[in-house]
Each structure stands twice: as structure tokens, then as C-alpha cells.
């Protein structure tokens, strides 16, 4: 089990910003399986101080445990 899970559709929606290396606001599920909104940098390369992420598939086909995504959380976003 990796530390964070993100939704596949959110990754898709934010793909452009992510590719440009910009931080995005995204919902992540942590090890407690609860959601929080964070500002984070995502990348296909390992990030210093970052973690591997799994992907919750929006088509309900399950959780992809192994992905090539990494994420570094910059701050939690309060609602």
C-alpha cells in the first residue's frame, strides 16, 4: 500500500498543468482512506521529499497500485 491515492479523472483533468511542472490542487486519499485537498507537485520522476502514488480508477476497475507517478505535497488546502 502506498501512502497516497489520487483519482484517475482528476489526474487527467490536470494533465496540462502537471506537464508544465506547475503545482495543482488535487484531492488525495491517505493511508487512513480519507480524502483531503492538497496543493501538490506531481511528476513521472521521483521528487525529493515526495511519495509514489496509486491511482483510483474512475471507471471503478479498482486501484492501480503500481504507477509511475510521484507526488510531493506542498500544503493542505482547507475548505
Amino acid at each position, binding site marked *: 500500500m502506498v501512502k497516497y491515492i489520487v483519482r484517475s479523472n482528476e489526474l487527467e483533468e490536470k494533465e496540462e498543468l502537471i506537464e508544465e511542472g506547475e503545482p495543482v490542487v488535487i484531492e488525495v486519499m491517505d493511508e*487512513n482512506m*480519507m480524502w483531503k485537498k492538497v496543493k501538490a507537485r506531481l511528476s513521472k520522476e521521483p521528487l525529493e521529499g515526495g511519495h509514489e502514488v496509486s491511482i483510483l480508477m*474512475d471507471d471503478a476497475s*479498482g486501484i492501480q497500485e503500481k504507477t509511475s507517478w510521484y507526488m510531493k505535497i506542498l500544503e493542505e488546502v482547507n475548505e
Partner: protein
Amino acid sequence: MDLREFMEKLKELGELKEIDKEVHWRLEAAAISTLALRSYGVSDPDRGAPAIHFRKIKGYPDGYTLLAEPYAGGWKKPWRRFAIAFGLDPNIPFREFLGWALNRLQSPVKPLIVAGGEVKEEIRMGEEANLFDYPWPYLHQGDGGRYATLDIIAVKHPTTDWINWSNYRVQMYDSHRCILNFTPGQQTADIFYREYEAKGLNMPVNISIAEPSLNAAAAFAPPPFVNEADLAGGLRGAPVELTKAETNEIPVPADAEHVIEAEVLKDVRLPEGPFGEFIGYIHGTHMRPVARVLAITHRSDPIIPYTVEGVKPNSSQPFPVAWFSPALMAGMLMRGYPVTAAGFHPVFTWSNAVVATKVPYPGYPRDVADAYFAFPVVPGHIDTLTIVDEDVDPTDIETVLEELALKVHPKRDVHRLPMGPRVTLNVYYTPEERKRRVGTKTWFDATSKRWDEKEMGPRRLNYEKIYSEEIKSKVDALADEYLKEG
């Protein structure tokens, strides 16, 4: 009666297993109980696997425990655990259970308001009320979060005294918010959408974890303005004891294990799911209303029951058989249809309906089918109905299949009613059909027709019918001597 008394009864019958080894709330508990149910489903389809009390949950204080699948019992006799809960013979035949339930549900008993109660052993208000202080299980790989599955959602109609109870799954979203799976068309959901949100109001809600009579009443679907608490009292034969909530006007069960007091926020939606759905497949997210937690009260050692939804056998499959059947039966009788048993066959209870009836005039089965599918009580995703003769037990799948095989004309007795389904979870609908909400209902007329078994035409061949009383009495004596079982 509280949940613990029910667990005691199960224990006496050897139908509760206690596990003290530490298990994880994330998938592990769910996988253990699912495997147990699957193997007992084969070896003992009438009794099924024991319910499992997991007494040490990883990361949670001692005493914060999970109760797996309290209502599952055997898949062939899905009303069994409720029979045990209500002190009936565990092996009671379906028709007798149905008769008992109908009778009790027609004798409601008003609740009693009491001071305090076990549910107030711990009271946490505001910030202190954190959903993740409790071991809600993560049930299926691929779910969008942790869920309460066997609960009682209580809301108040804003301008009358109606307090509606229902069982909807609840997704624990973060420490202070949960998502309620309010399916439009259901009473609780519609009270929120039409009576609160449409008028610019938040809706108070209490989410309780309690005992079998409350779970039964919450799943039962009475007409609007009926308080399910009165029905739970009828089932128990004694008033349900309710006590004041901390933050709203809706009383809560005094002997509940756990209560979340919250308010459903107007104009807020969050993605609910994915979730392993009750009709056997995992489905993606829907945007659903969100409740903000205001208080949590619970026993000092709360027990949280759960069911692994969608996987058969489980503790969800018994609900249509045990609690939708009497609702349907009552409704059909009230409308003058001479139905002898309404039910669902146990192979997959959420996805079929079977009704046994007298056939008082030619063409009558069509009237039954029309009435049945128009009923608000029949879940919208149920697309097939089998109508059988009055003496057939709807839960006896072998006989239902035999009737289908022997009595259904492949053309004249298979009927279609084009109509929109109220929910569109069935996997066989295309995305287009789901979007347009069009679907079809099919019904099979498996009643005897055009010929009368008793007087003319074909006579069904079985031992009772084809031998004279004289032969039978001779044979019975011989059989006693030579053909005893074992």
C-alpha cells in the same frame, strides 16, 4: 433488545465467532468474512457462516470492534438471522416468517422517550467528534473510501411529526464530513432534496448503529408519513427506547452502539464511491449530498456491524426477502390482489421478484405484473418478475425453476413492459439507455392456465397425486421398514 443480546443469541446457537487476533479494517476483516461466507455457502446453505466479532482492530483502542455480516445466515434461508433476533424458530419456513412479519408490522408500537442511555457513555462535540476515531471498514479493493453499511438514517419532515428512518450507506469522507447515498425517489432522499434543499435549508440527520429491529424497520418501505420507529416497536412487541440527541430534535436509540449527529449541507456535493454495489458489481462515482458532523455519541466499547455489499451471500441479501416481501404483500392485499406470498428468490435477492398468487380470473397475471412494477416498494432496478401458483414458495428456487421450466409457454407466457427504470445500475444497460433512463421489465407467467390440474388436462406427476390411498398406505409401511434414511 440491543445488538449485544442478539449477539448472545447467535453465540448460543454457535452462529457467532469471536476473533481476538488483530485484524486490519482495510480489506482484511472484509476478506475474512467474505471467504467464510463463501465456503459455508457451499457446505451449509441453510445456516451459513457464523457472524464474526473482530475484537482487536489495527490502530484502534481495545473495545472498538467490528461485527461482520450479522444477518447473512444461509443463502437459501436469508430470513434466518432475523428469525433468531425476534425469538422465532431459526428454521421457520418463509411463509410463516412472512405471516409473522405482516402481523407485527400491522401492529405498530409508539416509541418511549427516556433520559440518557448507553449511547451517551461517550459524548464528543464539534471538533472532538472525529469520524476516523472509529474503525469503519474498507470493504472492496477499488472503493473510494470507508463505509457504514448497516445503519439507521433518521430525518424529520420539516412541517409534520414524521420521522423517517432508512438504511443508506455512508461514506466517511474526511474527519468531519460524510457522504450520504441519497438516491432520488427514496423517502429520505426526497425529504432532503424537496423539503430542505429546495427551500434553502440544511437538514439535520442522525446516523445510528443499533440492532436488528431498527435495521429491519429502516429497510422496510412503508408509505410516507409512517414513523419506522413505530414499526420497529411492532416487530419487537415493545416500544423502542429513544433519547434526546445533543444537537437536533430527532431522538436517537438509547441503546445504540454509535450515533453520528450531523447536518446535510444544502448545495454541496462530493463524489461518492466507487463502491461495490448491492447488485453485484463495482460502480463509479456519483455526486451526492454531504453531511457535516456536529457530534458523535457512543458506548464506551462500540461495536460496528458491516456487510460486504454486493458479494453473495452477505448481510444485505436478506433484506429484500425479509423486509421488502411483507411490504409488497401488504400493498398487494390492500389493493385486493389474492397474493399468497411475495418474495425474491435467494440466488440473488436484489435482482428478481417472485409472487405466488391465486388466479381468480383469466388474464389476471397481467394485472399483477402491472401493479407490481408500478409499486414504489419494488426497487427500480428489478427487471424480472416470476408469477407462480399460490402453493409455490417464492424463496424455494428449485421449485420456482421447475415451474418456469414446466409451465411457461415460450411465447405467450413471456411478457415485456417497456418502462424506464428508476435506477440504472444494472450492468446490461448501455450507457445510452442509462442516460435516457429507458429500460424494459420482463415477467414470466408460470401459473397453471387453460388446463386445470385437478379436473382435466395434464396432471402433474408426483408421488402424492399418482397413487391411490390404498397403495400409499401399503407402501408407507414397507418404506418405514426398508427405506429409512441413514
